[in-house]
């Protein structure tokens, strides 16, 4: 679509009070490779905000920097008024994270795991008990409360990670590929849960996904990342207009926005690796 494959999409002005996650100039390099290239992002309060992009675009790195799992080389992340660089503990206290792969302590039982999370967040004991009861019922894990996590399937572990992330009732939930390993019932549960969390609990959700149908259904706003930069942002309607696919679904919009010729791709990849197109890294 674009003649400049790494063109950035400008950030619209917004009031700090309306924004729960404010990202400015976020930049990350691995050796000579630029994973994320000066990204600016505002996640509005009380919305589901989607991050889309092709494989290797920099979505997961961006989300991991926002949750404090990876330190950026440059740039700042402010979560609910807390600067992640200066006050990481305060920023993390209001953030929940669900990674794409549910690695948890296999040798703990479900209950032990959730109690452990409650301890990390220094939650009140009776509140932890109430939340555990509520979440285990919601995610259908109550019967497995005393079972070791190592006996769980991938999908069950993913449900447990959801329970853990939601236990402390964070202001913002960051979710990387929420649907991996979940069955159709799980898909439906998560989609309706996201909408409920936003509507009832006033939670904000930042999610990255390849499942465009999910993004289309639940996201209020979307950014599309390609080659480490944001190439489009807005509501689905705005993206449709930008891509010229006024009647298209999100998949068509996405493909149009991320479309590029081989030469454009070579140019962008070369820039990310810090060398000339055609030159071997």
């Amino acid at each position, binding site marked *: 679509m674009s003649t400049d494959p790494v063109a950035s999409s400008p950030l619209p002005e917004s009031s700090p009070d309306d924004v729960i996650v404010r990202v400015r100039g976020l930049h990350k390099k691995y050796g000579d490779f630029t994973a994320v290239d000066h990204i600016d992002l505002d996640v509005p309060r009380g919305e589901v905000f989607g991050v889309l992009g092709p494989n290797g675009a920099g979505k997961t790195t961006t989300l991991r920097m926002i949750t404090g799992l990876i*330190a950026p080389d440059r740039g700042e992340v402010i979560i609910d008024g807390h600067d992640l660089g200066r006050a990481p503990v305060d920023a993390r206290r209001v953030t929940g994270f669900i990674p794409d792969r549910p690695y948890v302590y296999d040798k*703990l039982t479900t209950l032990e795991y959730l109690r452990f999370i409650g*301890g*990390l967040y*220094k939650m*009140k*004991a009776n509140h932890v008990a109430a939340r555990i*009861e509520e979440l285990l019922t919601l995610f259908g894990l109550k019967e497995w409360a005393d079972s*070791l996590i190592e006996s769980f399937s991938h999908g069950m572990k993913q449900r447990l990670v959801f329970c*853990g992330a939601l236990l402390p009732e964070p202001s913002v939930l960051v979710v990387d590929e929420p649907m991996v390993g979940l069955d159709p019932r799980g898909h439906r549960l998560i989609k309706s849960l996201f909408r409920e969390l936003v509507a009832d609990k006033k939670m904000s959700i930042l999610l990255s996904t390849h499942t465009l149908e999910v993004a289309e259904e639940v996201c209020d706003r979307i950014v599309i990342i390609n080659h480490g930069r944001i190439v489009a942002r807005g509501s689905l309607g705005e993206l449709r207009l930008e891509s010229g696919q006024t009647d298209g679904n999100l998949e068509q919009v996405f493909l149009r926005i991320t479309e590029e010729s081989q030469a454009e791709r070579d140019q962008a990849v070369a820039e990310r690796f810090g060398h000339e197109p055609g030159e071997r890294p």
Partner: protein
Amino acid sequence: MILDLIGIKLRMVRGTLRSDEGRLRGPFFAVLSLMFAAALFRSGHFIVTQSLMLEPVGELLVQRLLAITLLVFFGLLVFSNIVTSFSSFYLADDLEFLMAQPIPKDAMFTSRFLEAMLQSSWVIILFGVPLFSAIGYGMGAHWSFYPYLVLVLIPFVAIPTGLASILALLVTNILAANRTRDAALFFGLVGFATLFVVIRSVQPERLLNPESFDSIGELMRLLSVPTTSYLPSDWVINMLAPMLFGTRGQWMWSATFLALTPLALYFISAWLHRPLYFRGYTKTQEGRHGGGLMTIARNWAVERSRRAGGDYHERMAKLRALGEQPLSSLKALVHKDQAVFMRDASQWSQLLIVVAIIIIYLVNFKYFEIAANEALLGDVGLSFFNLAACSFVTVTLCGRFLFPAVSVEGRSFWLILQAPISLERFLVGKWLGSLAPIVIIGQLLIWSSNLLVGTPFLTCLLSGIQILVITVICAAVAVGMGALYPQFHNPNAAKIASSFGAVIFMISCIFLTLMLLGMWFYPSMTITQPERFGSLSFGLWAIAALGIVIAAFTPVIALKAGASSLRARF
């Protein structure tokens, strides 16, 4: 093909050294290893020159000490090769991928053989070469001795690999699949016990005090008896003897055996692997899900610890009963670590080794006390020796159990990074949570060994305090350095405990504890035996005070350095 298979591993090592962290840590490790090798060389040389002064048995004494050292190395190599062979031939993670590739059987065998040999033998390079070189230097050997030594050591390290690969092959084929891990543990322990018995029968401590022999004749008899016939360690001595002692007794015979045995073992093993390897490999894969003794024991322990706090409803009732009280993050970390440790069967075999270390330590100490009393070290020296030996055991335990503590978080570490706790607090949790068992073992060792030889109470008390301080410091350094050299991708705590980072921890911690014990030695002796040591100069008190300052700051520095390194890593 063989070069490709080995080459990929070497390229992985090169990749690690080229990475940002490798660029710094590689040279650091090299410098520390060189320092350690130099210290070993210096001590070896000192012992050789001291022994040579004992006329007329000096040279025989050196020969005997060399024999014992080689025997110990051989035992360690057998033990290490058994564990490595099971792991690299049957349990390694990359086997699943390699077995699906069109790799010829012989190429696969040879690459694994070489890998097991290299992996098990690097300890010889680090510890053995400086020691044997020191003997050569002390004996005034010609320069050609040193390259010749390397040539002799290569078949020496290959023999245990050949034996272990055949043993692993037979065990995996003969025993029921789920007994393989039990068998590896069993053979390892039997090897270790045999070595212990052989060394004890030689009574090496008596050699340190020749006056304990009733007559020179008895000493000569002990010195001239070969340690054990037909052992590769003896062949090596016979090979080195012409260059060191100018004797050529059984050179030809030993050279033949030393050259042919590894070759024969390699070919027999390769020949047996052709029809039997795949069967053994398949059985071990089934065994991963089987019900071996370890699995049965583990299931029992898991069930016990899982039910310890009652069922779901009871636990929830207890939680509710705490009311508005906030849960402690430090307690949460400690409880989590304890539960995970208890339920991890791979940690248990290591507990058996701890028991073995304690028994060997106490038995050896008693012998040492009898043999070396007064004449060599005196009671003061013996007391220092005991403190140093006990510290060494503490360092070993910290290296085995605390150093991997950060790494065993594995892929779940994202939970800690994302949680609202500082990495310093996380490391403090690791440190405090694992301190109690190490402190108990340390105190048990120092008090029982001191009481065993009738040490006065005040000395026992001071030794106990010093070991307590050393334990607390070593535990913090182990956790801190474990964070400096984490291996989150490695699921095996035992392997993490023998990684490069762990060796660096061991070396630095041994230096540190010896330095602290040295700084506190004279003041503690003045307190316990004022009539013998009189009053101390201001300088010595100042050094002791400096030791206390170092002891107070080391844990803080170690944990802070570990936390910053983890932060920089992500």
